[in-house]
């Protein structure tokens, strides 16, 4: 009696694998983060450790460059910053071994030359660069801890704060105007605002599984890629009665994983499982999508 359902489950599983995975048709490119260089391309980081430079306009996009770096484990997040006049990409990766977890942050030039690295005995889930203080913030994906790096010095990673009530911190975004760092808990879906001076952390919203945060260019809303509901939502930073709004409908992506504004009104959304990056206008209408493999 038991064998038949098991056999049918296995058969349907194999069928599902066969149809859902055109596995070896193209090199793996699962985007996990996107950042925009001012007056330059959008950089897209893949889980496998490749950075793609994509020129994006309102009607088309083109991959114009790429570099790869060896990743044992996976790459999780990327931030753009200018340190001492040098444009940099900061990339957070995590590897595991029998001796435990090792998170690494690498600093690269935008053409892929490695400038430095820092390590942490935690999963690195998010990186965000604060231009004003020249500080790179690093969030721990397996604890409530937030760390910082001073890229211009050779100092090790510094502990900054515990975010109470969280267990798995994720992506971050920096609001220069309000001197505030926005961060999220991937497990519980909560979005927090951490005011830098005086330091105060408050919960400002909740989604299901936040994968990426980015601030709108006018600093009025924070956009959240929610891989649980497979959509992008916006969270108003004003005093709106309805602060949380759908930017795209639920289930409009496979796994939204990276957000970057390409200009004042157009948002690029990277989709990890779809291996693509799409551009949306201010109303949430999709303009086009670029396959990344």
């Amino acid at each position: 009696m038991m064998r038949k359902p098991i056999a049918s489950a296995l058969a349907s599983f194999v069928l599902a694998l066969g149809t859902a995975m055109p596995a070896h048709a193209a090199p793996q490119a699962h985007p996990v983060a996107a950042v925009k260089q001012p007056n330059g391309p959008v950089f897209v980081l893949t889980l496998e450790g490749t950075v793609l430079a994509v020129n994006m306009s309102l009607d088309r996009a083109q991959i114009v460059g790429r570099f790869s770096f060896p990743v044992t484990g996976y790459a999780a997040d990327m931030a753009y910053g200018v340190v001492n006049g040098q444009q940099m990409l900061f990339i957070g990766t995590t590897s595991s071994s029998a001796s435990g977890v090792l998170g690494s942050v690498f600093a690269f030039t935008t053409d892929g030359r490695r400038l430095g690295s820092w390590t942490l005995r935690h999963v690195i889930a998010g990186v965000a660069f604060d231009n004003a203080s020249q500080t790179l913030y690093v969030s721990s994906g397996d604890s409530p801890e937030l760390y910082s790096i001073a890229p211009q010095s050779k100092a090790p990673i510094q502990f900054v704060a515990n975010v109470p009530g969280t267990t798995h911190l994720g992506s971050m975004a920096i609001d220069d105007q309000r001197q505030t760092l926005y961060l999220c808990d991937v497990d519980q879906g909560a979005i927090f605002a951490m005011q830098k001076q005086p330091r105060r952390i408050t919960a400002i919203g909740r989604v299901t599984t936040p994968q990426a945060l980015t601030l709108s260019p006018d600093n009025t809303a924070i956009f959240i890629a929610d891989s649980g509901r497979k959509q992008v939502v916006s969270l108003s930073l004003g005093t709106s009665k309805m602060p949380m709004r759908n930017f795209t409908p639920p289930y409009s992506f496979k796994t939204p994983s990276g957000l970057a504004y390409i200009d004042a009104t157009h948002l690029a959304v990277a989709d990890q499982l779809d291996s693509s990056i799409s551009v949306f206008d201010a109303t949430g209408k999709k303009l086009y999508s670029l396959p990344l493999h």
Partner: protein
Amino acid sequence: MMDNPPFRSPIRAIVAAFLIAASCCAPACTAQFATPNDSSAIPVRLDPVHPNSNSTVTFSAKYLGPIPYASISGKELQDVQMLDPTYRAGLDLSSLARDKTGRFIFTLYVNRANLFQKSVDAYEIGEDPTGGFNDTIQPVNIYIGSDRSALPNSTPLPLHSPYGSPTALAYKPANADPQSLPMGKDFTFHITLDSALDQLGASLGDATATINCDRCLQTLQVKLSKTALSLNDQVDATFTISPSTFKAMAAAAQPESDKYDATITLVVPVTADKGGSRRDQTVPIRVKFTPPLTGIALGVILGTLFGAFIRMYLGTTHTNKQEFYLGLIYAIVCWLFALLLFANGKTAIKLLGFNFDPTQMFPAFMLCLFAGGGPPLVQLLKNSVLGSMLGEKQKNDA
């Protein structure tokens, strides 16, 4: 795979249209569903599994809220086999991804069986693996509604190790261990690696190779025969090398082991399908440098002649001619005997860290020189070395 919902009555069609519209009226609607009421959720639980004795995968189920069935009707869902027909559930394995914290997540859709084709409750299933194991597929117990609802071990799920697959490739050197690398010319050889993957295929990255002797190779390149590996599969790694003759001779004179001169370390990045972690598989290949036959012959002939001449000039027991012939015979016999001993792979002749391997050019020369020179040469060395040491001692004493 589940069928599209049949719109058999106008009421159903209206309900379905309403649900579709509700899901698509993007910016106009507020995102109140983003904080789903957990108390209304159907309980979902998955038993932990143990891919091997040292590892465990535990699961978490996060309620994402209800969605209309129409939103997922096109998906390839894997039915969860239920003992209790009250509920129906489908797994969307094509949604398997990694979140920012590195966990593997996918979506499970659940509802009462009679309501499933109207709307479903979505759950994000998270895998938390600990310990090392090869990425695999194993059956998992999923409980929906009650602890007696699941058919035991009926739901196969892909399980990924946090380390990546530690033993995805196996190398069993057959006849060529150690692998011979001829000196003085470019050389290509290949080895075959067997797939040790467990249920899940993998993609292979660009392989690299290094050797642990100092600059003994001018070039060392490796190329794999394929970029994707399946179960019970094989992949060939083709090495192209260009030895640096003198460095290779030096490496052969001071080998890493009695049986091989150096080790090439092949590194193959392996990433299991369905979003596994990249893991570098390290394969050591033991190598032995072999000079060309003409080189060995030259070493033997020169060593024999030098040895025989030394014996002829220094020897006093026999006539010059006899000493010369004795030198030749001793040198050749000694070299052949050493060759015979080396052939079984269990013998090594070492003097002051120097390996007298009769298959190497310089060691063969030295071996024949000493054997051919015989006692007169040993006496000469003894006198000169001991003499100089005694002279030093007397000088120090004075």
